[in-house]
């Protein structure tokens, strides 16, 4: 059997300690008031709206809407996005579920805003937007004038469709543009307006309610209702964003709320703090239990459990600042705690075996070797069903664009999206906890235990759950 050298314990221990420190505390530098985060710690966790308070709302086209296409939904999403940005809500999540024609939107309570009124906010988000094409643009307004003083050329209903196109310019270069197709109702008006503006450097601006979304200069007179806006798009996404907004203005349906919930920050942070205390208590109790049950290997198991928890935090925050961060919710914290409790199973399997082997008269080395060797398949077996379930949880409660949901689309395709986004995090932390349990419960515990057993002071079988020190035991060992 391969021997694990003495220093291995210290190397593994220090690695876990350093990793745990950074996963919890993070690492960042300050330059004046500007913080640069290199490693995200607990304070950088992006909390879900069930913790920091906020709004979770599902919009659906009102019942009189017929033939809602995916483009319509994208357009509607883009309206909501524009409105949120306008309200200074930048940290929102928005998903379109094309199967059930729903748009799910989550955004946090504005912490600096005492008068934040979630119902009012939702009411405004769901209102139909009024898209207008106006003569002139925001820059041509004189003091005291508002956008309403700009003459309306077209409204959203005059636009048949807008789409992003990759067009060839007159000089032969290619670029992204938005092509506009007008209805008969808009052709004449647009022709007149472009005729008037062409050559004067005048612009025709596009507004959604009171927000200017684009203000192109007129480069040609549009006779046939086929126009294109070009010159300012850096990518396909840019062009599509404007096309979506224009389509949104001509949205034929009103959005109504399908489900709508709000929670105040007081309630959420209180619940989170309670869970943090619970997690700490659970962790300490479990460590005491494994140490009492398994003595020296129990201490190693406790160190590994700390690594498992830190690993889960790292998977939530993304650890390095360039990774995406996961949104953490109350059930997500419950998942971490639950996974710690379940993770002990790996140690129970291994150490019961070690005890048995010691009782059968094996040496410490032999018992440890067999105990850890046999453990893997049993631990794998014990965790595989939890992993299956965690993936299903993520699929059932996840957002439509999460990979678990996509994986399970064939099964859930007829059903709506989840109104309970918070359980998704439970599936996630549970899955991560289970996977990390393989790494920490097996690998690091094993390395540390086998390495520390090389030290003379730790060569008493009693430390491993065996009977008192027996010199003759070696004879039976392999």
């Amino acid at each position, binding site marked *: 059997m391969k021997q694990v050298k003495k220093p291995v314990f210290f190397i593994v221990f220090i690695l876990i300690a350093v990793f745990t420190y950074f996963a919890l505390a993070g690492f960042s530098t300050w330059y004046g008031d500007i913080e640069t985060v290199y490693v995200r710690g607990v304070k950088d966790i992006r909390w879900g709206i069930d913790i920091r308070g906020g709004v979770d709302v*599902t919009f*659906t086209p009102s019942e009189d809407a017929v033939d809602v296409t995916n483009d319509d939904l994208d357009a509607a999403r883009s309206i909501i996005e524009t409105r949120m940005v306008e309200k200074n809500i930048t940290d929102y999540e928005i998903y379109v579920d094309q199967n*059930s024609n729903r748009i799910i939107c989550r955004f946090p309570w504005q912490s600096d805003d005492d008068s934040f*009124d979630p*119902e*009012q906010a*939702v*009411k405004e988000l769901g209102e139909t937007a009024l898209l207008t094409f106006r003569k002139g643009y925001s820059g041509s307004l004189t003091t005291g004038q508002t956008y309403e003083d700009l003459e309306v050329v077209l409204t959203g209903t005059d636009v048949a469709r807008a789409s992003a196109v990759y067009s060839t310019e007159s000089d032969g270069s290619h670029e992204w543009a938005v092509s506009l197709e007008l209805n008969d109702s808009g052709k004449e008006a647009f022709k007149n307006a472009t005729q008037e503006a062409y050559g004067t450097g005048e612009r025709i601006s596009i507004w959604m309610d009171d927000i200017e979304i684009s203000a192109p200069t007129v480069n040609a007179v549009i006779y046939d209702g086929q126009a294109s806006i070009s010159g300012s798009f850096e990518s396909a996404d840019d062009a599509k964003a404007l096309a979506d907004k224009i389509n949104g203005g001509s949205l034929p349906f009103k959005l109504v*709320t399908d*489900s*709508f*919930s709000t929670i*105040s920050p*007081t*309630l959420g942070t*209180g*619940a989170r703090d*309670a*869970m943090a*205390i*619970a*997690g700490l*208590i*659970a962790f300490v109790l*479990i460590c005491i239990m494994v140490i009492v049950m398994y003595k020296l290997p129990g201490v190693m198991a406790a160190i590994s459990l700390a690594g498992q928890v830190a690993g889960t935090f790292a998977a939530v925050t993304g650890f390095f600042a360039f990774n995406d961060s996961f949104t953490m919710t*109350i*059930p997500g914290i*419950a998942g971490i*705690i*639950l996974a*710690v*409790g*379940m993770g*002990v*199973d790996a140690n*129970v*399997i291994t150490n*019961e075996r070690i005890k048995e082997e010691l009782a059968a008269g094996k040496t410490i080395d032999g018992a440890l070797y067999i105990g850890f060797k046999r453990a893997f398949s*049993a631990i794998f*077996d*014990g965790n*595989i*069903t*939890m992993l*299956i*379930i*965690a993936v*299903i*949880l993520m*699929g*059932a*409660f996840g957002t439509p664009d999460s990979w678990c949901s996509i994986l*399970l689309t064939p099964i*859930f395709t007829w059903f*709506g999206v*989840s*109104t*309970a986004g918070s*359980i998704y995090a439970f599936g996630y932390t*549970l899955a991560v906890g289970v996977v990390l349990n393989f790494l920490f419960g097996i690998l690091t515990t094993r390395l540390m235990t086998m390495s520390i057993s090389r030290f003379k002071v730790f060569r008493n079988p009693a430390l491993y759950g065996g009977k008192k020190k027996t010199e003759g035991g070696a004879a039976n060992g392999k």
Partner: protein
Amino acid sequence: MENNKYDFLKNKKIFFIIPIAIAVITIITTLIIGVPVDIEFKGGTMLTYSYTGTIDVNAVKSTVEGMNLGTVGVSTGSAFGSDLETVQVSFASDEGLTAEVQVQVTETLRRQFSDNDLELVNSQDVKPSAGFSFFLKCFVAVIFSFILLIIYIGLRFKNIGGWSAGAFALVALANDVFMVFATFVFMRLPIDANFMAVILTILGYSINNTIVLYDRVRENRKLYGKKLTIDELVNGSINQSLTRSIKTTITTAVAVLSMCVVSLICGVESIVSFVFPMFVGLIAGCYSSIFIAGPAWTVWKNSHPEKPKKA
């Protein structure tokens, strides 16, 4: 076999009767008083406000009823160990309340009870159709998990006792799921997404204890062959796997119980309804793998003796 400290087969009738009795009582209770269903699934609206001073529940009720929004229920509660007094207004409207109407309700209440400093802390509004499709989705998730587990059990049990053992593993699982359901029924916790998440977790977790047991049975059968009767074989195996089953369940239960106790003390109800049923499920899972999965299988095996070995 040595180390048979306990005889798990002697009182097996009692072991079977206890869960069956609980199941029967649960079913009767469900039929008579029904199961509360959360608005997440059935649709409706619930607005929760925090308030200061004292508030007259009936006055709140009549104020909201005056707005003609259908049946109104009003109750008071508290969060964080009564640090935060709350009053809940619930509506059983078929269409849900639009954000506009909710604004009106809040404004009216604030005006009427200006001394109480009402603040909206939580609101939930679900259309019945959305609620139902969400329920279906959760239901499909549970059924799908069941199917996957049956496939898994089928693969696993091909070697460790055949389809009959697999069937009893499922019986044990069904027991665990039912105990979680019973907890919701008797504690009058509304069936919600938490319920579904707990059911799924328990399904994934409790099958393992049973697999460990049947694995031992297979190992011992190889070791002892026909020298032992089915009863001796199974009882010995239960005794051997007892330590792991109990220790593993205890550590998991400690984790869950810590959450349960802390959230009870702090008055965070949303967590209690998640972790307490999970605690019950864990205990039921441990019970069913020790007292049901093994003993019930011996009853079956004894009444259906194995045919001579094929190969």
